[in-house]
């Protein structure tokens, strides 16, 4: 085969390869988006209401808030704290220890105060605080 034919075939093959690469790139992004964003999980900014009389003094109530577990604590002194119940170490859900008035993460024994501050164990930071308001005996979280 002479050089000009070889060159022509190489150019054609290069063009086909470029087209194939473009086609792959063109479908990769839509496929990635399809995989990335499930539409049902895009609900955020919602509010949750909990009547205060549902929680005894020194007790806590767990609920789902914006797709993740959260907890409302009514401390012994009557003050409230709304926190994410997800341990910042590995994502386990903390447990309320009523007798000790603190939170325990059952996965790696991390302890938190009733306000979410780390007492001991591997958690790298406090439990995230969630804003709340109290009106007419109903706590509105979010």
């Amino acid at each position: 085969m002479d050089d000009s034919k070889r060159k022509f075939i190489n150019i054609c093959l290069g063009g086909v390869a470029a087209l194939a690469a473009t086609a792959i790139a063109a479908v990769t992004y839509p496929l990635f988006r399809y995989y990335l964003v499930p539409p049902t999980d895009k609900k955020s900014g919602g509010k949750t209401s909990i009547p205060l009389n549902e929680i005894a003094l020194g007790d806590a109530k767990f609920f789902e808030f914006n797709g993740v577990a959260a907890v409302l604590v009514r401390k012994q002194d009557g003050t409230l704290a709304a926190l994410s119940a997800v341990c910042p170490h590995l994502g386990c859900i903390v447990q309320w220890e009523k007798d000790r008035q603190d939170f325990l993460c059952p996965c790696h024994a991390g302890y938190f105060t009733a306000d979410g501050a780390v007492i001991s164990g591997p958690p790298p930071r406090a439990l995230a605080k969630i804003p709340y308001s109290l009106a007419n005996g109903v706590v509105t979280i979010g």
Partner: protein
Amino acid sequence: MEFLRNIYNWIDVRLGTHEIITEKRTGYLLPRNVNAWYSLGSVLLVIFCLQIITGMLLMLYYVPDIDKAFDSVSFIMTEIPLGRLVRLFHAVGSSMMLLVLLLHMFSILFMGSYKSPRELHWLTGFFLLLLAMGISLTGYLLPWNQLSFWATTVATDCASSIPFIGENLVELLRGGKQVGLHTLGRFYTLHVGLLPALIAVLIGVHLFLIQRTGVSTPPFGLEDTSNQWKGESFVYEEHPGGIPFFPNFFLQDMISISLYLACFMVFVFFFPNIFIPSTSYVPANPLVTPSHIKPEWYFLANYQTLKLFPSEIIGLTVQAIAMAFLALLPFIDRGEEKHPLKRPLFTFCAVSGILLWIGMTVWGLYS
């Protein structure tokens, strides 16, 4: 018999099957000092086939929906004839697959069979180990019980400590902030579709590499135990005067497979609860993490390492370095010697590494 012989002849004249059997099986010679450890690859092939068969049987009744998954598994276990056995075969089989994979890897390690020109054999084997761990992890979530739910939560949350992209990566894995419906869909797709296909392809590549380079010579019982390949050109490692694969080593394969099946049946029939503990019988509850949650045994060392380090990113980095070292071992260890007793530093490090891994696993179990 005449009928079967005619069928065989019909195929033979078209495909030359007799030639394949003569050249590739009876004429396929293995080193005279080949040992039983070489049959672990065949055992792994049998396990993989068993996992595929039992997995397909489970798919007949399993429903990948968070409201139905747990009940469908309970239905298989309690209502379907032999359903309990099929599920136990699959669940126990996944653990046994990893155990045999590790044994296969250790034998390659001590016999120096990963050395050049077999770096690619080792790498494909290493990726098969990762894929086997991946397929076990994704399958673990499917029964949607407390253990599977929280073990998956902890495992996927590890990715969050990766700087900058951690949080996004966790959402990508889970399909949401928490393990939920989309996680189950993703893991199910990976478990029954993508990962088995990748494993099958990689097994094919692994076998092709072995066929292409020839079987390595074990270093035991020889005077010269150095690596014979000098890196100058491609050489098929022949074993003149060696033993035929069929029927000699085929018999060894059958013995090893039978021994494996005997051990496997002991676990399935007498100790199934080792692999399916009591928390597996409680449906998943996203608001309550059970106490003393533990991942499967093959992740216990990783779990304990994460507990030891005050920072998650340090724990993950240490594990990533260890895994990278293991993957790149044939490129790091360029020594010619293959016999474990003639390379004491390597053997000491390898034994220490294995003991450390076993120690961390036991510590993780009882901590």
